């Protein structure tokens, strides 16, 4: 049972990276290790001090190592003009030394 990204080819998807960034874009290409090519990519930047902003990035290649989640989304539910302040997503913590 293959868990592939093929069904999201040419669809708008949201990529969460391991450093906690959220990048939206159209999935143009991918491979088995989740290296991605996104067209018309935009980053939704969430900071602790100001409302969310969208930064245009254009054509983006994301190395699969850094990919955390890939999802499709309901654009209506995406809070595009939110004025509330929301902090960034936490980054991926690998093994913590105890």
């Amino acid at each position: 049972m293959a868990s592939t990204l093929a069904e999201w080819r040419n669809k708008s998807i949201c990529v969460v990276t391991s450093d906690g960034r959220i990048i939206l874009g159209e999935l143009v290409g991918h491979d088995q290790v989740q290296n991605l090519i996104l067209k018309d990519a935009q980053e939704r930047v969430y900071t602790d001090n100001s409302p969310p902003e969208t930064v245009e990035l254009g054509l983006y290649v994301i190395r699969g190592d850094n990919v955390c989640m890939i999802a499709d989304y309901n654009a209506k539910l995406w809070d595009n003009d939110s004025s509330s302040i929301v902090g960034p997503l936490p980054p991926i913590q690998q093994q913590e030394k105890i």
Partner: protein
Amino acid sequence: STVNKLEGFCLASRRRAELLGVYRGREYFHAMIFLSFFKTLVGKEIAVELKNDVVLTGTLHSVDQYLNVKLLNVKIINPEKYPQLVALQNCFVRGSVVRYIQIPPELVDTELLQDAARKENAPAK
């Protein structure tokens, strides 16, 4: 019947490992016990906790050899904490970022799974 499926998968994966040959007495991920186990959970509702502390629940659509997981109709637990993710519908989670997968206990024959895992990790034949 979920239990029978798991048993079937365990036997099949064991047999497959034998056919593939054991790497000097130590099997790597050829036996795929956990892959087989997750395949029995396809269609069920599970929760996935990631290493960035985000918890998602959803219906398991598919799983692969890296334990990458695809969930349908995801919900974020704690949407107040992570409102950025509320709009997500179907989600592919990379296996390397999963911390836990939470499963309803009635879907698991724990003894069978433990037994199979013990046998896989038994010393070289």
